[in-house]
């Protein structure tokens, strides 16, 4: 299952790679990373068919996670990718907006990787 992680903090990448070490070795998951919403859209242009799940930070310079979510729902909704939003501000407003725009799930930082793992596995099993 190909997962795109969108976050402006580059250090999030080794965290994913290490936490999902086993899954990666077993080729259960495959991760790709984008450092901004714009980069994510660029990536999707070529890889939209492979990507099953998108994990995106909300607060990023330039295009925000919410913008990206809207774009995805607008342009790639026929592929029905699962989109989970992540934010450091776990407030009502962000949550409401994310859900309105069509997010499948909402996570807060610091990420609980065990919880995330369960959620990802659930998506994989359902898919």
């Amino acid at each position, binding site marked *: 299952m190909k997962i795109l992680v969108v976050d402006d903090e580059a*250090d999030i990448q080794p965290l994913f790679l*290490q936490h999902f070490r086993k899954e990666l070795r077993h080729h259960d998951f495959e991760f790709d990373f984008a450092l901004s919403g714009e980069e994510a859209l660029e990536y999707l242009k070529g890889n939209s068919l492979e990507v099953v799940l998108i994990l995106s930070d909300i607060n990023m310079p*330039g295009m925000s996670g919410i913008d990206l979510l809207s774009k995805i729902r607008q342009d790639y909704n026929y592929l029905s990718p699962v989109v989970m939003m992540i934010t*450091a501000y776990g407030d009502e*407003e962000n949550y409401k907006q994310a859900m309105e725009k069509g997010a499948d799930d909402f996570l807060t930082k610091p990420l609980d990787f065990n919880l995330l793992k369960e959620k990802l596995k659930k998506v994989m099993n359902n898919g």
Partner: protein
Amino acid sequence: MNFDYILLLIVFSYLRRALQSKILLPKIDKYLAIGFWFSIVLLIAGFFLKFTKEINAWIAHAMLFTLIYFCLTQKEFKSVKSFIYSILPFVVVNFIEDCIELINSPFHDEWNNYFDTAIFFSIVWFFAMFFITRKQRKEMEKEQLKAIEFEKEFQQSEILKAKLETQVAERTAEILGQKEKLQKALDKLKTTQVQLIQSEKMASLGELTAGIAHEIQNPLNFVNNFSEVSSELLDEMNEEIVKGDFEEVKNIAIDLKKNLEKINFHGKRADSIVKGMLQHSRIGNNVKEPTNINKLADEYLRLAYHGFRAKDKSFNADLVTDFDENLPKINVLTQEIGRVLLNLFTNAFYATHQKQKKSGETYKPMVSVKTELKGKGIEITVKDNGIGIPEAIKDKIMQPFFTTKPTGEGTGLGLSLSYDIIVKAHGGTITIDSRENDYTVFTIFLPTE
């Protein structure tokens, strides 16, 4: 001759009056009084007792000469000298006539006319002298009056002077009192100013708190996440050791080392943010130190951004930085310049946010900061594509307490303090270029000294 007695009476009474002897010379007055009354007796006797006429005349002569002698020799009589001179010819002529009459009566009779003439002239002389002296005396009295008048005027002016002096003293005291009050008011104002500046600092600190919290939260998250994953990695490493897959053990060890470096890096990041926050709130650290303006601008741009976004979480803006990598470190009051930048960035975000509210989704907020080495200094340019500044208020925005923000949202001190910091404390300049509904550019020039 009865003239002698009358003359005596006149002389006595004149002397007493002119000398005011009753008051001023009581001893002499006694003699003069006796002389006066004696003269009256002689006069009466001269009328009724014909036989004593000769003797009386000689007594009168003696009295007159004695009087004249005293008047001319004693200093008490100095003021009546002129009067004595006026009677002197008459007294002398009369005396000579009487002498001649006594020695040679026929000769006297023969020359009687001449004697009478002489007496006549002596009388004329007396009156002439009398009137002249009177006139002189009157003039003198006038002079005296004038002198008295002057004296009075002088005294009045003295009184006036004294009055004026007390008034001046009173006014001086009043002015001094007012000066003291003003000084107190000034001191109070100064304290208030310091407090205001401090509260402005605190206000901007408050604005920052959320941004800072976010900025600290991020590295903390990494510290937590990396330490967790490292712990897991160690478990896996142990498993691999048991399995004997030392190639994988090596890989894990490399990852662990990297993770520790990350933990250290993010720990330091949080540390520097906390230190920056402490610096921001500290009062009056007035030492200029070599500062990397690029780093400072970048740090405060992000702090301002997160601080602003904490208020409206849906707000997003493009942050564009264009730093001159050859920028030398310059000596500035680091936190003060940081405050200026923070203020300019916050204003820029505010301006773009306001425009976003009007324009809707098509509008992309953008805030940029550029540094450049220019001549003998460094130029920092902060630009936003927000609502701009109307021409009408361009002149006012640097004034203290001027703000376009709703009450409670701005102190109106930000730009005025920025101006003070850049211009007064660093000898630099701060200029504004703006077009309404289009853009605003603040350009700061800091001399390298």
